[in-house]
């Protein structure tokens, strides 16, 4: 009783701090942090995209000289690939869906006014930023950035003599990953505490929006996965600098020079890395899946069918995601029975994923679809998720993976299912939540142009990669023309991919322009522009939750076709009566 009455006596809120720096930068306000995270993601995605263009251009025209740099050496190419992968996976596909978006709307969606631990949350952002700087510093240290790919398999990553960039550059990479792990675990601990213990009045688990369920699952995965990576990175660091040999086998001969010591196993890193790496995929895509469900409900004006089924699928994907890492090791010579087992778990995770896809497809045909920009990007997300997801069961079969592993088929698979689907859901989120930041909607015409060009260019970029993979083209090849095999049939395909990639990157200028333009000239959004039901659109900062999320459709009432969570279905008396409105807390 006392706790309930507590609010009555609380002091009036103090004035917000003044000054740009204190309001927007050095603040623990989650929305300001969301903007900072978005800017960080924007910086990372810009660099990452430019690097990917370097990759594409170099593959097709190896002799081209880049401005301010000149011709790319093979080690430069590998450094660019490594940094592209690391930036995109960690600082874009993890930071934006798993850090920026929850900061933007998670507290509001659960009816809370702030995070459970705002300062911890802010510290996580600054650590992430430091991690980005340390990573980018790898470009400028002697001998350049690491060249062992974002997976950094030892002994390549453990012995500096194995290549340029494996010295100071690799140390930068490891330090950046360590910082990022701490930041990710800290921010996820905050999200978990916020979701579990800071929900507003009436926000039961059965009323949580699906995005919140996704963040619950992905935060739990983050805590587990990134702790694993941190420990693995620590051991690799010890191998590099303190003479241990967790990952370095005995009898190494590097460039003709025998190396003393060793006796470890590189397989240990493979297992640990992918025990992190595969959940990481779900960390970056689960929030997008939750968002897709929410936006489909909103823009078809119909509830999510089988809400509990979707929640179960989300949690099941998160749980099973911890047990499939072995499918990255099918060709590592591990026990064939283990290969069979990991193939089975991987197929098993395809089932809840398929369930979510089927639900989305079913949702498309109910109600009336409104083809707004966020909806288009959600459809794009589903399209890419299906396109990339369907090759998943193929790669899950060890017998087939034994040919396709580490070819461009895999590149096509994860760029469609993780990168493109992830980025399109990020765009959907930004178009959708933009009014929360600016009170204006983003320009729809520009948005649609952005969508269609991006969609076609993205398919043009990544779909033909399947063919390159079937032809047997391995990843990380600095040039197509090798001494024995130069894949002559792939040259036109590769050229087409490069043109599509250039188009894809250029199309993002429309988006940048739209973001800046609409901040001043966009249509005024009003309180709830999408006529949505979840709390981030509620005018009250402390809403009481009165119903389920996604109550759309004719049943919602005679006048409007939706019932926000903060509004009651039947005006009075409430079916919960006194229980829901304790004296003194009845809302106006």
């Amino acid at each position, binding site marked *: 009783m*006392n*706790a309930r009455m*507590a*609010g009555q*006596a*609380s*002091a009036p*809120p*103090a004035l917000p701090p003044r000054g740009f720096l204190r309001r*927007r930068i050095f603040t623990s*306000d*989650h*929305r*300001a942090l969301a903007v900072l995270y978005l800017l960080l993601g924007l910086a990372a995605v810009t660099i990452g995209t430019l690097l990917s263009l370097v990759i594409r251009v170099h593959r097709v025209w190896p002799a081209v000289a880049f401005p301010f740099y000149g011709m790319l050496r093979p080690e430069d190419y590998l450094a660019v690939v490594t940094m592209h992968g690391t930036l995109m996976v960690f600082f874009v596909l993890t930071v934006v869906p798993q850090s920026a978006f929850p900061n933007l709307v998670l507290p509001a969606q659960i009816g809370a*006014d*702030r995070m459970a*631990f705002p300062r911890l949350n802010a510290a996580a952002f600054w650590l992430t930023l430091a991690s980005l700087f340390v990573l980018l510093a790898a470009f400028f240290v002697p001998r350049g950035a690491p060249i062992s790919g974002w997976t950094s398999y030892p002994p390549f990553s453990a012995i500096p003599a194995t290549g340029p960039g494996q010295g100071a550059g690799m140390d930068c990479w490891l330090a950046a990953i360590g910082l990022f792990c701490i930041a990710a*675990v800290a921010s996820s*601990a*905050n999200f978990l*505490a916020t979701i579990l*213990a*800071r*929900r*507003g*009045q*009436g926000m*039961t688990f059965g009323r949580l929006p699906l995005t919140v369920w996704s963040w619950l699952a992905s935060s739990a995965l983050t*805590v*587990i996965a990134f*702790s*694993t990576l941190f*420990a*693995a990175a620590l*051991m690799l660091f*010890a191998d590099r600098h*303190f*003479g*241990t*040999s*967790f990952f370095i*086998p*005995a009898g190494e001969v590097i460039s003709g020079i025998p190396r003393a010591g060793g*006796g*470890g*196993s590189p*397989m*240990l890193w493979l*297992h*640990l890395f992918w025990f992190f790496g595969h959940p990481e995929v779900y960390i970056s895509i689960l929030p997008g899946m939750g968002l897709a469900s929410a936006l489909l409900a909103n823009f078809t004006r119909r509830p999510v069918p089988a809400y509990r089924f979707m929640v179960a699928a989300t949690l099941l994907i998160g749980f099973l995601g911890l047990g499939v890492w072995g499918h990255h090791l099918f060709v590592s010579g591990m026990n064939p029975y283990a290969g069979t087992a990991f193939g089975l778990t991987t197929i098993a995770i395809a089932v809840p994923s398929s369930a979510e896809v089927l639900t989305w497809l079913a949702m498309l045909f109910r109600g009336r679809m409104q083809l707004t920009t966020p909806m288009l990007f959600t459809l794009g997300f589903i399209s890419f998720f299906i396109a990339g997801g369907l090759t998943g069961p193929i790669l899950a079969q060890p017998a087939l993976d034994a040919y396709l592993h580490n070819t461009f088929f895999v590149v096509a698979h994860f760029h469609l299912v993780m990168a493109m689907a992830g980025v399109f859901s990020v765009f959907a989120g930004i178009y959708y939540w933009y009014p*929360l*930041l*600016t*009170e204006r909607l983003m320009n729809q015409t520009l948005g649609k142009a952005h969508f269609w060009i991006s969609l076609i260019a993205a398919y043009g970029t990544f779909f033909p990669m399947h063919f390159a993979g079937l032809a047997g083209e391995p990843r990380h090849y600095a040039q197509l023309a090798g001494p024995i095999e130069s894949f002559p049939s792939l040259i036109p395909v590769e050229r087409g991919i490069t043109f599509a990639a250039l188009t894809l990157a250029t199309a993002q200028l429309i988006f940048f322009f739209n973001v800046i333009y609409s*901040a*001043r000239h966009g249509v005024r959004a009003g309180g709830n522009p999408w006529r949505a039901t979840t709390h981030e659109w509620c*005018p009250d*900062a402390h809403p009481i939750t009165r119903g389920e999320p996604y109550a759309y459709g004719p049943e919602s009432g005679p006048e409007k076709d939706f019932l926000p969570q903060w509004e009651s279905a039947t005006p009075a008396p409430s079916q919960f009566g006194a*229980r*829901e409105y304790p004296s003194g807390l009845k809302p106006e």
Partner: protein
Amino acid sequence: MPATFTRHQVEIEKRDTGYGGKPPVDRRPTGGGGGDDNWDSHSSRHGGPRELLIRYRLAVLSGLAGDFVFFAVLVSAFFVRPTAGHIDAGANFVSDWHPIAIPPILWINTAILLLSSLTIEVARRQLFHEIDVMEEWLGLGRPAVRRAAPWLAATILLGGLFLTGQWIAWQQLAAQGLFFATNPNSHFFYLVTGAHAFHLFLGLFALLFALVAIFRLKKVEMRQIALDCTAWFWHAMTLFWIFLFVLLVCYQ
């Protein structure tokens, strides 16, 4: 950007988290104190002291879950590394994993750590003792804090003893010629005991902080949180140590 960040004022000042709210107490037999957590009716808008405590505990436990995974991964190296021998030139399987004789002082250290876990649990419970807490809450003195402080001080002492003991154990190993880089098992030994000692080192600071905090903090529930979270961290470290110690002793 011209627009306001938020349509409604987001309060960023430190909220008064329990003014008027009774701090949680240890009420038998539910242990955690009462069972009237009804999500439908409670208001986290002005999250009461109990919600605050739960929130802090949740964050500490999430962090500890990550920490547990961290130690589990280090331990996985312990299981993998001995099997990662190689075939030498004479086609013999060679493993460079040499068992380490555990310095006997580790047994004493283990006992000390277990004892410290006991003392901090006693200290923690003092702060949830209903009558004392009510007395503190009403501003009639600080009986709970006064009872808890000696136990907390004892924990700090025992924690310091444990760390000293670990240091001695390392010295003893070093005297036998076993250093960090000597052999794979010694890497592992130093790495896990070092990582664990580092955690306890942080834990000592947390204990010191808690000791100061329970005297300096004005709100009863904040005092409880400071001690409670430290205690859970300390218990987890004891648990991890037992886990590591059993491995080191039994699975060489």
